[in-house]
């Protein structure tokens, strides 16, 4: 057990190193930050001097090594654009993204499971078929287009909901929340629908197919044959057995929500880390870009590691399989 855990943690660390290298080299080549930092009346001498102070004149491996050693201590350097520590900026922006992701995730899970169960039970009904078809439209429309259309309809034409930003936020112990004001809640509606729609369809379709699978199992037929009420069969027995794979997939999808937030945040000008990242690309703010990607990688690798270890702990068959493979 311990050997397996150590091995997996080691593998994760290698993954992080590689992602870090990839991310860092990407940014090193994307553009030159110096041009964004100096004004119109700069001279060649100004440019050279700034390159030296930023360490951009050093060989690439040296830059990467410095970046890694600092990152390991939680120090991602200073944003070229804002002149502030990147970690401060990330902490400032994280609440916006996390709140948006939480609301989207909540919408996706509750509505997704509800519709999934419904379409599985009424699988030949008109409503269920209609929902399935509409859900395909949802999957076939790119997120950005949904966002644009929602803004056009609900903000510009109808004027019901704000078109951008988070509205008023309240600071609760260093965490700026939009949950406590009415404008903050209104501002959440359109972006969270945009962001959650795709995951919602995914969960709905997964629940539906898992439900269909379970519903044909013998014990369900047996339960029906015993004369249990349909409701009890559907929810107490079938849904419960569906949830294990659903929870797993949903866990993995959580990471995707945060990554897809880049697109939603761009469309809605939502002041989270995704928008920060896109803006950083625009201004070649290398420290911010590298830190964001490292953070996302740590998150994904972490989720993956936890899911793996959980499987290992729960499923004895897997344990036998793993040990047999080595």
């Amino acid at each position: 057990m311990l050997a397996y855990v150590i091995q997996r943690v080691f593998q994760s660390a290698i993954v992080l190193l590689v992602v870090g290298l990839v991310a860092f080299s990407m940014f090193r080549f994307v553009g030159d930050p110096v041009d964004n930092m100096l004004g119109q009346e700069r001279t060649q001498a100004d440019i050279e001097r700034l390159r030296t102070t930023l360490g951009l004149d050093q060989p690439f491996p040296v830059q990467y090594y410095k970046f890694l050693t600092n990152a390991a201590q939680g120090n991602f350097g200073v944003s070229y654009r804002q002149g502030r520590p990147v970690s401060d900026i990330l902490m400032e922006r994280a609440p916006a993204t996390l709140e948006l992701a939480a609301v989207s995730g909540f919408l996706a899970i509750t509505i997704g499971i509800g519709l999934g169960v419904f379409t599985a039970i009424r699988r030949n009904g008109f409503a269920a078929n209609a929902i399935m078809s509409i859900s395909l439209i949802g999957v076939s429309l790119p997120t950005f287009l949904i966002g644009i259309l929602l803004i056009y309809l609900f903000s510009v034409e109808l004027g019901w909901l704000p078109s951008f930003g988070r509205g008023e936020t309240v600071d609760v112990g260093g965490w700026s929340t939009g949950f406590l004001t009415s404008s903050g809640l209104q501002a959440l509606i359109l972006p969270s629908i945009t962001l959650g729609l795709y995951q919602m369809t995914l969960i709905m379709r997964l629940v539906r197919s898992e439900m269909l699978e379970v519903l044909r199992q013998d014990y369900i037929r047996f339960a029906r044959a015993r004369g249990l009420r349909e409701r009890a069969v559907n929810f107490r027995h079938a849904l419960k057995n569906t949830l294990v794979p659903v929870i797993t997939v949903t866990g993995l999808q959580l990471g995707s929500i945060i990554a897809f937030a880049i697109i939603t945040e761009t469309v809605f000008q939502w002041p989270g880390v995704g928008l920060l990242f896109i803006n950083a690309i625009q201004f070649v703010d290398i420290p911010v870009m590298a830190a964001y990607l490292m953070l996302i990688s740590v998150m994904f690798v972490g989720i993956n590691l936890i899911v793996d270890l959980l499987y290992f702990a729960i499923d004895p068959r897997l344990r036998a399989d793993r040990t047999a493979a080595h």
Partner: protein
Amino acid sequence: MRLPLLIAAATLAFAGQAAAREFSWAATTDPQTMDPHAVNSAPVLGFLNNVYEGLVRRGRDMRIEPALATSWEPIGAGEGWRFVLRRGVTFHDGSPFDATDVVFSYERASGETSDTRSWFAPVSEVIRVDDYTVDILTSAPNPIFPDSIANWMIMDSDWAAANNTTAPDKERGTFASLNTNGTGPFRVTLREPGLRTVLEPFGEWWDSAGHNLTRAEFTPIRNPATAVAALLSGDIDFINPVPVQDAARLAASPDVNVIRGTEARVIMLGFAHAASALKYSDDVTDANPFADARVREAVALSISVNAILETTMRGSAEAAGQLVSPAMRGYSRTLDPRPGYDPDRARALLAEAGYPEGFSFGFKCPNDRYLNDESVCQAITAMLARTGLRASLDAMPVQNYWPELRAGNFDMYLLGWSPGTFDAEHPLRFLVATPDDDKKLGSWNFGGFSNTEADTLLPLIRSELDETKRQAMLDITASVVRSETAYVPLYVQPLIWGVARHIDLTQRPDDFFMLRWVTVN
């Protein structure tokens, strides 16, 4: 569900907001620092002009008027300028303003780490005569010096010393990158970089407030379409810029006014004059047709600027014939308007130059720097194709664009130039003078244009005190630029601001937005 309830709440909230004299505005970029000496760029200087002040300032019509100095006069026969300072001015933190702060601000703004030091290249010394008199000595007579320092902002020397920010640092930032202490009409009460900046009026301001604001909030919105939606839905009172294509729609809205003007920025085409051969050609690889003035003129004649202005810019820009717009000081009134669209003459000139079938070449263009830059470049590419000038267009974000130009990777390129001094001498120094690092000349003359007459006249123009003689020399250089087709000026970039109907404000040609001229009705 709960949606209808929330919507009802939203309607109520908007109704409530109308009564407050609060003002919110958005622009595409956030000023990257609050330090007035760290970055010499329009978004920073424009924003900080609301917070800090210089010795002089520009009025609604761009004229120089007294600010922290009440009067100024030349010393002797052009040795420098004497400024008499305003008494009774205090900084936002309550400390008084005097000559020490001016000398300190000169040192800070002209220091090694400052991005504004090129402004002070003509200055040899700044002397504190007494508490309210300062002498600024120049190494050569400098008639336009007071005009060139409207954006030189004065910072409190004690505040800077106490907060360890006596020199700007654009890499790591200092206390002054996030905090401000100016003498201006507004003070920054909240600064969240990239998110929002909140300002409130400064009660002790020396001038009478022309505005009626109680609070102003600035939000950077990168996506122009989002900004337009925010203005239309009433979330924002003012946006700058309005995408040209949305101006008509906004103007038709009952809640929004569109204010148009022309900016100081001239959009033009530049050429690789000094290159020995084209870099991106399929057919002419051993010669540089753009070294021939006839070919450059053919480019100018192949482009129908009117069609671009009418369609791409939707009638909201004006054609340009010189490197500066007519609103600038030193604009040459003696020169003819720009030559018109004449593809036949263009073809004849190409044939004369030895390219009757035209040739192919590379055309570089930014895609996020100027209004509709990429669309304009595409339109130009199509127009040039009809006279046989087959451009292959390469449009890129501005972050890759400047390094490309600096590396000489172009045959032809698009450039916008806004003279920081609002004077025709400025583009001569940066775009026309033969590049010379030591003399800080021609630093944006990427194509290496070189003309002896222009080079000889430039230093004379810079030190000439007599307005008429100076203009005569500027007229000569303007006609040299025209006859050589050093650049092809296309149009003056339009200023299009979108303002909620209940707001009154003033649009200045340099695209600076001054809160002190805003009234909420």
